[in-house]
C-alpha cells in the first residue's frame, strides 16, 4: 500500500468560498484588500517559486491508495489577526474541501484554528460526522501543542479517531499570530524556510514535557513538510533531560521518546536531507525511527515523487516508508479516551 500524507490543494479564487458562508460574511470578505492580498499568496506564502502566480493544486497521487489533501490556504489562518473571521473562513474551506477534494483515494484534512479550540472541537465533530475527511489540520499557533489550551481539540480528535496533522502555512516566524521560530525574527524568507523543523521540534518537546501524551493517549500527530532527519537527536535530548529531571515533570511517567515513537510521525519531504553522507542508514537503521517516517510528496510544491523516494532510500526502505502511513488511518472507534 502507498500513502501520500502531504499533498496540497487550493481554491482557485477565494470568491468560490462565498457560497459556503453566511452572505453577510461573504460581503465582509469581498473587499479588494482581502481578496487581493491573500489570493496573491495562495501558493504557500513566500514558500514557493510560484508565489504570486495563480493557485495550484496537486490532486490525488496516481500511485497512492490514499492521498491526504492539506488545504494550505486554510492553514494560513494562523497568521490572521481577526480570529473570528478566521473560523468563518476555515469553516467555508472545510465545506468546499468536502465537496471538491473528497474522492475514492483522496481525502482532505479538516482545518481548525489554533486560536479558538472550542470552535475547533465543534468543527472536528461536525466534519467527522459528515465523513470524507482523513485528518485534522492544526496550524502552528503561538501556544505550543502541549498546552492545555488545545485540550478541547485533542478530546475531539480522540472521539473521532482522526490524526492531527501539523503543516506549516508559511507565515510562521513572520506574522505575529503564528508560531515564532527559535532564535528570533528572520529577515529572510529563505532562513525561515530552512528552519521550519524548529516548529516540529518545539511542539514535540512541548507535547512530551507538558503531559499531553499522558492526557490524550489516543491522539496521533503527523508533523508534515518539516523534514525528519532531526528526530533521533531531538528524542535523545528530551530523554536525557527527563532522566535527570523526571522529578520536575512527574506527570511524564515514562521516557518521553516512548510516547513519540508510538504516536508521532513525520513526513519524508525533503527526502534528500537524510540521504547525504549515508545519514539515512546511520540515523534510521533502527526500526523504531524508520517506522515514524511516512511518505509525504509535498506536491505541487516541488516535492518528492515515489520514484525520488525509491532512488534515495532504495526499494525496500522506500516500500516501508510508503506504507508507514497506515498508522495514521482513521480509527473507527476512539481508543483510550
Amino acid at each position: 500500500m502507498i500513502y501520500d500524507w502531504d499533498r496540497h490543494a487550493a481554491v482557485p479564487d477565494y470568491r468560490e468560498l462565498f457560497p459556503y458562508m453566511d452572505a453577510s460574511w461573504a460581503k465582509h470578505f469581498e473587499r479588494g484588500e482581502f481578496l487581493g492580498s491573500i489570493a496573491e499568496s495562495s501558493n504557500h506564502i513566500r514558500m514557493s517559486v510560484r508565489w504570486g502566480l495563480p493557485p495550484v493544486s496537486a490532486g490525488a497521487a496516481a500511485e497512492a491508495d490514499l492521498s491526504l489533501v492539506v488545504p494550505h490556504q486554510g492553514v494560513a489562518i494562523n497568521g490572521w489577526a481577526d480570529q473570528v473571521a478566521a473560523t468563518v473562513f476555515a469553516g467555508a474551506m472545510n465545506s468546499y474541501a468536502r465537496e471538491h477534494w473528497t474522492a475514492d483515494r483522496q481525502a482532505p484534512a479538516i482545518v481548525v484554528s489554533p486560536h479558538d479550540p472550542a470552535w475547533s472541537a465543534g468543527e472536528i465533530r461536525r466534519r467527522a460526522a459528515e465523513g470524507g475527511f482523513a485528518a485534522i489540520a492544526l496550524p502552528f499557533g503561538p501556544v505550543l501543542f502541549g498546552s492545555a489550551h488545545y485540550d478541547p481539540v485533542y478530546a475531539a480528535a480522540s472521539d473521532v479517531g482522526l490524526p492531527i496533522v501539523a503543516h506549516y502555512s508559511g507565515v510562521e516566524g513572520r506574522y505575529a499570530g503564528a508560531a515564532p521560530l527559535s532564535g528570533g525574527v528572520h529577515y529572510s524568507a529563505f532562513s525561515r524556510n530552512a528552519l521550519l523543523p524548529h516548529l516540529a521540534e518545539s511542539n514535540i518537546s512541548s507535547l512530551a514535557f507538558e503531559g499531553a501524551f499522558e492526557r490524550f493517549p489516543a491522539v496521533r500527530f503527523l508533523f508534515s513538510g518539516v523534514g525528519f532527519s532531526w528526530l533521533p537527536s531531538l528524542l535523545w535530548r528530551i530523554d536525557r533531560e527527563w532522566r535527570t529531571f523526571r522529578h520536575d515533570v512527574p506527570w511524564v511517567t515514562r521516557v518521553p521518546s516512548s510516547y513519540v515513537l508510538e504516536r508521532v510521525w513525520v513526513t519524508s519531504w525533503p527526502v534528500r536531507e537524510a540521504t547525504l553522507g549515508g545519514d539515512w542508514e546511520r540515523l534510521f537503521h533502527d526500526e523504531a525511527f524508520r517506522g515514524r517516517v511516512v511518505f509525504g510528496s509535498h506536491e505541487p510544491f516541488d516535492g518528492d515523487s515515489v520514484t525520488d523516494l525509491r532512488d534515495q532510500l532504495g526499494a525496500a526502505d522506500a516500500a516501508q516508508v510508503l506504507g508507514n502511513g497506515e498508522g495514521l488511518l482513521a480509527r473507527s472507534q476512539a481508543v483510550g479516551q
Partner: protein
Amino acid sequence: MTSPARDARTDAREHDPDDFERLCPLAELELNVIREATVGGRTVCVVRTTAGVFAFGAVCPHQGGAMRDGIVKGTMDPSPRNVYHFGHQGEVVACPWHGYEFDVRTGESVCGVIRGRVGSYPVEVRGGDVYCSPRRRKPRPSKPA
C-alpha cells in the same frame, strides 16, 4: 515507577547474619553524609538518613559517577500535570554527575529512568554499631509487560 519506600522488598534478616561486617559506630554517621566503606572486599556507600541507615553501590550504573558525592533527597511521585506530590525524603540518592535518582532501599532507578541499578546491601544496627552484609540484594523480578 519504583516507589522508593514501598518497594523495599528484602530485609537484612533474610540474610545470614554471620556474613555481616561491622562498619562503624552509628554515632559516627552524620545525617545525610555519604561515606565509603569496604565490605567483603568491595567498596560500598553508607549513609544515615531520616529514613534509616542504608548501604548501596559506590558507582552510578549510568556513566560511573562516584555515589559518595551523591545527594540524599526525596522525590516526586507520578501526578497529574502541574501537581506535585513530594515524598520519600531520605529514601533517594541522586548521582552527582547527571542527577539520576536511585532508591536507597533497593538500588533501583526511581521510576525506571535507566535500566541499571546501584547495588543495595542489607544493613543492621546492633548495639549502637552499623553492620553491613556483602551480599548484594537481588533485583526485583521483571514484571510482565
